[in-house]
């Protein structure tokens, strides 16, 4: 219901379709989309990157969180055309060379997920946090993820998962990987 009106205003000016070029997880991708297409729909439907989820229509839940030029953003609140020429990172880009990112390991080791639906957004938000603040306190972690809702875990183990990743990334074997 929301989709139609959020976007119809732009149509007259920019025309209904536009070719969007982005770099996603290091690879160039492009597609022609209606200008009103939300970035999250562009990722999920045009680029078939379904790891980024949709959990609300009011920018509250954070299930769609991705990194846009390194910053955590809610991809349901950005138009695909606004991402043109920019760099995106999604959950699919966390694992490199068959090795899980420390945040992924943290979520598994600390049982930081149950149904898994909020997990990609939660992890991307955490990655952004750890880039800015490699040694966050529990309080800082809780504040950082307060825009990401989880209905299953009660957050205790998510906090532990992020601490796990922070330790791992700081440690000698972690290599300070972003």
């Amino acid at each position, binding site marked *: *219901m*929301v*989709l*139609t*009106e959020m*976007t119809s205003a732009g149509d007259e000016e920019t025309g209904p379709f536009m070719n969007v070029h982005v770099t996603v997880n290091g690879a160039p991708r492009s597609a022609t989309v*209606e200008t009103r*297409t939300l970035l999250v*729909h562009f990722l*999920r*439907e045009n680029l*078939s*990157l*379904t*790891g980024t*989820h*949709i*959990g*609300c*229509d*009011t920018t*509250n*839940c954070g*299930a769609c969180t991705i990194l846009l030029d390194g910053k955590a953003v809610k991809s349901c609140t950005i138009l695909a055309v606004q991402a043109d020429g920019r760099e995106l990172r999604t*959950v699919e880009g*966390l*694992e490199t060379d068959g090795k*899980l990112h420390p945040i*992924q390991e943290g*979520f*598994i*080791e600390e*049982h930081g*997920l*149950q*149904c*898994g*639906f*909020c*997990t*990609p957004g939660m*992890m991307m938000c955490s990655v952004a946090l750890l880039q800015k603040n490699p040694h966050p306190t*529990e309080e800082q*972690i*809780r*504040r950082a*993820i*307060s825009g*990401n*809702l*989880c*209905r*299953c*875990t*009660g*957050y*205790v*183990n*998510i*906090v532990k998962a992020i601490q796990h990743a922070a330790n791992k990334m700081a440690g000698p074997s972690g290599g300070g990987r972003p």
Partner: protein
Amino acid sequence: MTVHGGVGQSIKRKEDARFVRGKGNYVDDVKLPGMLYLDIVRSPYAHARIRSINIEKALKVPGVLAVIRGKDLEAANLAWMPTLMSDKQMVLPVERVMYQSQEVAAVVADSRYAAADGVVAVEVDYEPLPVVVDPMKALEPGAPILRPDRKEQTNRIWHWEVGDREGTDKALKESDVVVKENLYIPRIHVSSIETCGCVASFDAMGKLTVWMTTQAPHAIRTVFALVAGLPEQKIRIISPDIGGGFGGKVPVYPGYVLAVVAALKTGHPVKWIEDRSENIQADSFARDYHISAEIGATRDGKLTALRVKTIADHGYTDAAANPSKFPAGLFHIVTGSYPFEKAHVEVDGVYTNKPPGGIAYRCSFRVTEAAFTIERIVDSLARKLGMDPAEFRMKNFIPPEAFPFKSALGWEYDSGNYQGALRKAMDIVDYDALRKEQAEKRKRGELMGIGISSFTEIVGAGPSHTFDILGLKMFDSCEIRIHPTGKAIARFGTKSQGQGHETTYAQILAEELGISSEDIAIEEGDTDTAPYGLGTYASRSTPTAGAAASIAARKIRDKAQKIAAHLLEVSPDDLEWKDHKFQVKGVPDKAKTMAEIAFAAYTNHPPGMEAGLEAVDYYDPPNLTYPFGSYICVVDIDKETGEVKIRRFVAVDDCGTIINPMIVEGQIHGGLTMGLAPALLEEIHYDENGNMLGGSFMDYLLPTAVETPKWETAKTTTPSPHHPIGAKGVGESATVGAPAAIVNAVVDALAHLGVTHIDIPITPWKVWKILHEKRAA
């Protein structure tokens, strides 16, 4: 010798491998060639006559292919469908809408956006009708009859009662002390982070496949067959990864049926995924219970009797998922952890102009309402008697030696040790020190409260003699196939929504079969492959399907024993199952592992025996299971803002034998958070016009990491005597037990001001108002 991944081990979850990579397969991830999208036109009115629906403009919207209205469905006899409580619900209205946001028409288009454009272009002309929001007013004479289609011309759906009315009246009259509280538990919404949706597709042979967010795929298949008149072998329901359920994904929503109709009408696969706002405005709600409870005791603090009267607001139809014999669910567990001699409960279900209510919120069967009632009013009674609430509970608990215990309202509690759990919680939190601190703080004018909740759960529905939904008995199932190389696959009639079944079921089987849990694949949710079962809700998976896993595995062991005897050239009676293999009694090195036996089952099975190593079990539980726990909550209240801050929350749970401690703890963390949510934050409110205030995440406040405290958990273990491995189930315990602990803590902090109860959610505004009034007075 332990088997890898057996019962009791905190192994990491198998399902995580795909979820952390973003490779889960949720319904909205399903994409089929030629797939169309369905979006729904919804009513702005809570009660209105539909004068007309004009679809001409909508059909001209680019990309729109079809619009479905109630009258289109009526022609196919599909405008109405049964609810799981054998009431009727509309797929689409023909004449009247009954609640705000009700489905009015469906638009099918070649993209999500076009479908949404089409929705805006559908013109509906409504004539508003008088709205009934308050269930008390709905019962008054002269109230508009909301369901004239029923024979009974009243808004009372049903009246249900249990217990000894006269005996209870008498016992209360003779009690030295009687306390009465009116408790309202508001309407709340489960709001799993994934909303509901489906993809419906017919193949060339007319077989329907529906990928659906459902917790009960098998029952849904049968309902579809009965409602749509489709042959059941031509229906396949696939419940893929589910992004949280909590009972909200048990009902059959109109959107599912509309997607099937649209697929039939257009000849294309059709996807329907609801928005969050649609989900929160129209999908099933829980609670909405107006409770009046009276409890009696002797002067020296011995409980005598309990009387509870309740008005249950079900909205415009009774669409709960209760066992059919129990319209108020298992609410009569309301005697809780106490051996009342007399008790009486009556509940009236009422229609109002709201969406279906009373369905589920991490508890489907009204057990939260019951636990909240008893734990709240026991606290009030202790206070009236001037007794410490912990001491009062200890004095009155059903003693451990009394189990199995028959409750005043007819339940047979399987096992328990309530004193043990409360003692442990008190030790962890250092109860006596907290009481001292509280007394000192009170002198300084600071507000601190300690709240206890010692709840008894009732789960694992249920025995076939009493439990059914739409006539389907509430068994559940497991089918195991051991492959020649000793690896296995097992399929179940349940469906995980985050509980970790792929891991825990494999652990039960690993323990029973001596195969590493890593070598056992678990599948659920595909009705073409899995055995029939009633699904996952009401904490029933471990008590029912988990038991079926054990029993099916033991059937396999029976056959394996014969094969092992054949291989070892001894009599089966000479063998014993020890250290996860069959060994000749007293000769441990003469043994056969399950892998060796499995290989023989396909290559060298004994003459006269069928080849293969498979078994299936449909488990009919002999009784329900009764998990329990004691929770202690410590709160500090900000006098200036009224904000309640949970300082500590200690949860001691006893769910019998634990299969995976890590997963159980995770379930308790989540359950506690869904107990905190209605206690302090969540409420679905309607104004007098039936207008929903707060139908999105902007107004309906799910707890974030900031509001949620750092839960502390501990356990006691009292196995169920009738479950094959002694497990009881745990998914809902914390949601059931937590709200009373929090409210008791807040009331405890304010008791010296004369406060005996505050209805949930306890918002800062409510507390501030109380403090403000008390200060003024």
